[in-house]
């Protein structure tokens, strides 16, 4: 912090090197990021956290605040939830022009598919063991999300699942649900 911690120490007009550096970096990285999502997303983000804050406030009131001599179970959550609420209001009021959000693009669909395949794995794991769902997950991610060739997909997914079998089942004898 040594270079920035004394505000006003520099002459007017001389730009802080550290700030300049950060701006340059931000710009550099900006080129590779999707465009920012605009004021609506900022307000939406604030509304979500506001809802959490309000819910927390109401619920913790119900748990009982007690007194300072004898704090109830709700006192601390109440204080924190009120802080979340106040900060969220500040975000909605002042944060609209910030550019730190990212738009959802067509490739966000990939993330959605990825999440679905993970849920599928979790659902099938206790039913048919880990081998087949793992193999399916690997194929989906490699071929359809990653755009690898079929040959690459086949080799990497079979080798990976075999390695997991060797590691978890044979070497560490961890009780994973399994087919074989």
């Amino acid at each position: 912090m040594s270079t920035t911690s004394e505000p006003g120490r520099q002459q007017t007009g001389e730009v802080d090197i550290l700030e300049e550096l950060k701006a340059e970096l931000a710009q550099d990285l900006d080129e590779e990021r999707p465009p920012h999502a605009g004021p609506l997303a900022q307000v939406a983000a604030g509304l979500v956290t506001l809802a959490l804050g309000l819910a927390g406030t109401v619920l913790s009131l119900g748990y009982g605040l007690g007194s300072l001599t004898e704090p109830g179970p709700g006192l601390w959550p109440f204080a924190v939830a009120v802080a979340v609420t106040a900060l969220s209001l500040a975000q909605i009021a002042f944060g609209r022009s910030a550019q730190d959000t990212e738009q959802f693009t067509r490739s966000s669909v990939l993330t959605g598919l990825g999440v679905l395949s993970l849920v599928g794995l979790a659902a099938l794991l206790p039913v048919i063991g880990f081998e087949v769902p793992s193999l399916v997950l690997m194929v989906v991610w490699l071929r359809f999300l990653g755009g690898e060739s079929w040959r690459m997909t086949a080799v990497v997914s079979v080798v990976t699942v075999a390695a997991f079998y060797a590691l978890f089942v044979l070497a560490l004898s961890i009780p994973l649900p399994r087919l074989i």
Partner: protein
Amino acid sequence: MDFTPIIDGFGIVLQPTNLLYCLVGVVIGMLIGVLPGLGPAATIAILLPITYGIEPVSAIIMLAGIFYGAQYGGTITSVLLRLPGEASSVVTVFDGFAMAKQGRAGAALGIAAIGSFIGGTVSIIGLSVLAPVVAGYALDFGPPEYAALGLLGVLLVSTVGNGGKLKAIIAAAIGLLIATVGRDSFTGAERFTFGNLNLADGIDFVPIAMGLFGLGEILYNLEENHKKVHAPAKVTKVWPSRQDLSDSKGAIARGSGIGFGLGVLPGGGAVLSSLVAYAVEKRRAKQPERFGRGAIEGVAAPETANNAAATSSFIPLLTLGIPANATMALMFGALLIQGVQPGPQLVDTHPDIFWGVINSMYIGNILLLIMSIPMVGVFVRILKVRPAILAPITALITMLGVYTVNNSVFDIYLVIVFGVIGYLMKKFGFDPGPMVLAFVLGTLIESSARQSLLIFGGDPTGFLTRPISGTILAAIVAVAIFPLVRRAIRAKRGEPAGAPAPTEASPAPVPDRETTEAK
């Protein structure tokens, strides 16, 4: 100073198992530093389940190795591809890539490795000397001090650095709220459990960390276009010349000091220190215009500083039990999993862990120096592995790994939920780091605050009249007010309206916390 525990610590490190875990840790660290995508916080989060099965000392030695190993590895992609493999090497890109274009990639990597080694070693020595002293003082801390210190830690981690500070604080406050889920330890009342038995004991740290850091990161990376072909520059002559060494020795010396100092501060850490070290060299330079065009000091300074900081950020964790950044919050969690409570008593109750971990860093740094200079070619070749191939493997490790902790499918769903939350947080500009840190510290802050109120007989001014907690609270106020003051001064000086005001979110967050991987 009694040296017996330190020497015993070396005995622990030199046991073959611990040496092996140290080697495994630094190799993984080096690899994930080189590979784009996962950073050290995500990797440590994903590997948390492994630590259940091994000895506490070995586990922490390995996780620490991943953390400082990544600081070495991150350099390679910064220099060769202009892609920082790790957030703390972002600033190395400027001069490192310029040097590579001039055919001096080898010298850049070499000086970075030597700087990292010196910075790391200086910092370990500082850690060995300073940590027991700090722990000695901290033994006098009572609940009011811990409540204040915990709050200060959360606040500093949220506000130091760039990006949306308001959002970071909101994320931290929500982390504090999540920490209250479950049975209240004072009254036994259930909070935010909605009658769900799985929630009565509170939400486990492991699924939260694995979801927010690990899976969130993986899902976020799925979206990026990874079709780019990696064609790293050729690396020859990794040993820097005599001229290179004499040009950068000042930068390495200052980088060590800056890194050590900033690493100790909560919220400081590797990323901030690399930026500050670079800025200091540029300001000191006789010809600052050389920077950005292949100045070797521009590589030496940040790479030295990030390693020194990675090491010294263990001080607050090992001596106060307060993690200084998100990665240290994971270490804190890993220690708790092992039944070890980090804090001032650690040096006396678990000298094996305390000195074992510190001394393992000497060995780890030597191993990393070997991997970074003679063996650097191996790691350069690894750059050709496509992220699309790694993503499903890491996802599978996460899913199966979390299952093995409690043999529970509920935990897998929990990780997926927190993974999606982590992904959305990144899309909407919230850093998950402060949230995890606040979650980890939440219980400590609440119980210390409530114990303090009991001590004070319900009088909250007691926090202010005790000298240490009063000072810490004054620091909290200073941290909260400083940006406003600075903004006011800037406004008074009549800077144009568009000037970057630190209280507002600046354009596109610079990844300068441990968790915001640059990639």
